[in-house]
């Protein structure tokens, strides 16, 4: 048995750019990161697997509206939410991924289910949602994913051909 265990997490690239971060917001972000880190680390500390630890940590982040995933997902051009997730373990190189899904609170758990319960690696769109329903996932209403900041970010781009990554200030870039 090896003794050293560790976890790292990321909350993506900044929703709030330099100069926009208040002390209150910074504290909220750090508290959310700390919560995800602690939950994931506790899985490892208690002898749990790395795959359980990363899923747990990402679920915490997906449930936080501050980050662009799960509940905090940004708006598409149609005013919907389309989420993608992937998970992989390094022992047997098992992997699961899901793309273009809407209404699922925790896409990372759906990716985990695809890895554990299907013969496939990557499911997308309506088929992925059908798989989700069969495996007990419930669909959240659009209101679950609504966030005023995200909505306003979309309003700035709505009707244009531009799209934007959180940390980008360029609105005319093909790649955000």
């Amino acid at each position: 048995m090896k003794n050293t265990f560790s976890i790292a997490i990321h909350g993506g690239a900044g929703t709030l750019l330099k100069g926009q971060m208040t002390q209150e917001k910074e504290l909220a972000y750090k508290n959310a990161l700390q919560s995800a880190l602690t939950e994931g680390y506790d899985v490892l500390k208690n002898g749990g697997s790395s795959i359980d630890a990363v899923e747990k940590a990402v679920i915490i982040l997906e449930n936080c509206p501050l980050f662009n995933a799960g509940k905090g997902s940004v708006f598409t051009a149609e005013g919907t939410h389309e989420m993608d997730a992937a998970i992989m373990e390094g022992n047997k190189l098992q992997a699961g991924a899901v793309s273009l899904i809407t209404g699922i609170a925790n896409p990372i758990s759906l990716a985990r289910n695809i890895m554990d319960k299907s013969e496939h690696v990557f499911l997308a769109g309506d088929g992925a949602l059908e798989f989700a329903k069969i495996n007990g996932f419930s669909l959240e209403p659009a209101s679950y994913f609504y966030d005023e900041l995200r909505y306003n970010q979309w309003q700035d781009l709505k009707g244009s051909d531009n799209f934007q990554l959180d940390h980008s200030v360029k609105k005319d870039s093909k790649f955000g």
Partner: protein
Amino acid sequence: TVGAVACDKYGNIAAATSTGGMTNKKWGRVGDSPMIGAGNYANNKTCAVSCTGSGEFFIRGVVAYDVSCLMEYKGMSLEAACNEVINKRILSIGGDGGLIAVDAKGNISMPFNTEGMYRACKSSIGIEEVLIYE
């Protein structure tokens, strides 16, 4: 995009990545995260990686697997491989973003080449950081 990588007591590593995509995206655009090998990868022989940034670049660079390949075939350390990919290879094609990675010994690397990165890590050897990089 959010993500996590971990190494457990048994030397098994894993990576998880989840994203809400890009604001105002259309045409069924998918990002880096659902692409095993591009933005997410794990192999006990090398590393576990989760990426964030402009997904198209990470797909074209097969970034997560590239880090693993540099370790497996070139014998690079986790830190050296991560820095090579983020600060040289992906940057050379205009890609912005970063990654987090661990190896099976519990080492951690978190390089990035753009502003506004939300990161945290914790290790059983006493490392603990919660940082917002501007």
